């Protein structure tokens, strides 16, 4: 109570004395405890449910932590990381997951961005029905992973699915999500189907930011439509490319829910990616992988995080260097 009054007195003094000094920020005008009350609830929850778990995860990765077990948790230094890279079974799984992760993020980032940019450029023209097309292409974005995944697994159900029936009538037989050769590519197709509308809308926003005068002066200089696209539109769209590619890479490296819903990692290990590998280690601790403790799972998730970070930093540096300012 006393401190409350003191704080109020201080703020009063600052109004009378140096009030104008702080006018630009308003700092010191308000009582400090009320500022803390405003920030504290959000920050506390953020610290408890995000900061603490992330830091604790790093800590766990250096221990043999196993919840509710009778063995005491020991600090094992880099043993988990050594186990991951030195034991052939673990390394095999890790490399497999890494390969799938790279295939997913590479194909999704490239194909989805080309499609999205193409759609955006075409729909930026004044053609009829363009708002309808935009709305329909964006629709899958809003559906959420379960429905996105289930719609396609049901359509490609090998016995009953409409798509599977039609394809088998055309002479193509497959078990689709049960076929280890194509399951991964079907998952990639679903991810692109689910996100292309989103990327397209970001490109559309980027296109609308390009000033019309550039096109007009281009026309006066005799540029054809194709030249305007190549020399004006594409260079000025590079900031949107950066945003889209980065979102795409982060999203597809960490893609987990669609994989759980459609294939659950299978058939075999055909659609294991890094996050799914971490999840299996977390859920099946000790059952399939003899020694898999939570500490080990934590170590794998740290490897996944470092991989994401490295890729994002490299790609960002590469793309930012190519952006053009208007």
């Amino acid at each position, binding site marked *: 109570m006393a401190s409350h009054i003191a704080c109020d007195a201080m703020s009063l003094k600052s109004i009378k004395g140096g009030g104008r000094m702080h006018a630009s920020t308003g700092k010191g005008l308000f009582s400090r405890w009320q500022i803390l009350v405003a920030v504290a*609830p959000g920050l506390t929850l953020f610290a408890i449910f995000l900061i603490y778990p992330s830091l604790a995860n790093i800590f766990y990765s250096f221990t043999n932590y196993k919840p509710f077990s009778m063995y005491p948790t020991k600090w094992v230094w880099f043993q988990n990381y050594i186990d991951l890279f030195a034991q052939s079974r673990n390394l095999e799984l890790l490399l497999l997951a890494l390969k799938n992760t790279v295939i997913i993020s590479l194909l999704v980032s490239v194909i989805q961005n080309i499609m999205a940019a193409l759609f955006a450029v075409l729909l930026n023209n004044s053609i009829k029905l363009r708002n309808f097309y935009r709305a329909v292409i964006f629709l*899958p974005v809003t559906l959420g992973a379960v429905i996105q995944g289930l719609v396609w697994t049901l359509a490609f159900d090998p016995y*009953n699915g*409409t798509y599977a029936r039609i394809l088998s009538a055309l002479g193509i037989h497959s078990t689709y999500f049960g076929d280890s050769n194509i399951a991964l590519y079907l998952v990639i197709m679903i991810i692109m189907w689910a996100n292309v509308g989103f990327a397209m809308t970001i490109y559309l926003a980027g296109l609308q930011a390009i000033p019309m005068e550039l096109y007009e002066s281009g026309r006066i200089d005799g540029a054809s439509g194709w030249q305007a696209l190549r020399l004006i539109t594409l260079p000025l769209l590079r900031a949107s490319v950066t945003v889209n590619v980065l979102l795409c890479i982060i999203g597809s490296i960490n893609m987990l829910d669609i994989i759980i819903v459609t294939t659950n990692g299978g058939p075999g290990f055909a659609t294991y990616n890094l996050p799914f590998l971490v999840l299996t280690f977390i859920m099946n601790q000790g059952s399939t992988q003899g020694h898999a403790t939570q500490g080990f799972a934590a170590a794998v998730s740290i490897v996944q*995080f470092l991989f994401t970070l490295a890729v994002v930093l490299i790609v960002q540096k590469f793309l930012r260097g190519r952006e053009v300012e208007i």
Partner: protein
Amino acid sequence: MKRKTQISHFLIHALFIIICLYAVVPMLSIVNVALKTHEDFLKHPTALTIAPVFANFVTAWNTANMGNSFINSVILAIFAPLGVCVLSTMAAFPICRRHFWGADFIYTLFVMSLFLPTTASLIPKIMLFKTFHLMNHLYGLIISGWAGIALPVLIMNGFLKSIPCDLDEAAVLDGCGYLKYIFRVIFPLARPAMVTVLIISILGTWNDFLGPYIYLTEPSKRPLSTGLYMFVGTYSTDYTVMCAGVIIATTPIVLAYVFLQRYIISGLVHGAVKG
């Protein structure tokens, strides 16, 4: 010249009709199957349904206990977004105005946290849920949802910058307290940004799969997303009923999208680009 543009317009329309079919036909094919009786489905699995039957929807609603999961979804999608909206606006104002020591650091922390993969905090979070007995309680997921203020704070921050600081000063001179100022002045002014935050948050909560998948494993506590996933996983004998279940779960989102399309698109995209 005119002829040329006509041809190119025709090609563009042809392309987009194909794209739109690609976008919606899987869903329509499922609607088509869901409207068939089982016998009709066995005889003509892919043919267009002429006489629609709604029995599958009733069966799906009852066997999947969808009324229950629907209520769970609604509870989650009301309380988590409201909390996020209030907490993030309250936190964003002091951060935006740099009203406390370390605001810059907190801001950077929020930006960095967006790059964290879910799996990187999963294990300690599960332990946290277990120690605080939040597992299998809706309020557990709601409270942990309130922690997701990073992106909302960044969106609010961008918006609050446009509110002039002179207003703060005027409020102080009129003797308005800080919290009163936030609730009475900032909240109404920041309504457009709060709508964006609400939309992102409601869609995110409604569509969230991993959260309920990990923290709400009890059947009676499942929201629509995991409820539907489990239903299709375990009830794999009657294909038409499964399709009906998927359609039931899809309908609310599609309806919301049809009516609030502009807000949803701009909200989602605005949010992601700010982040």
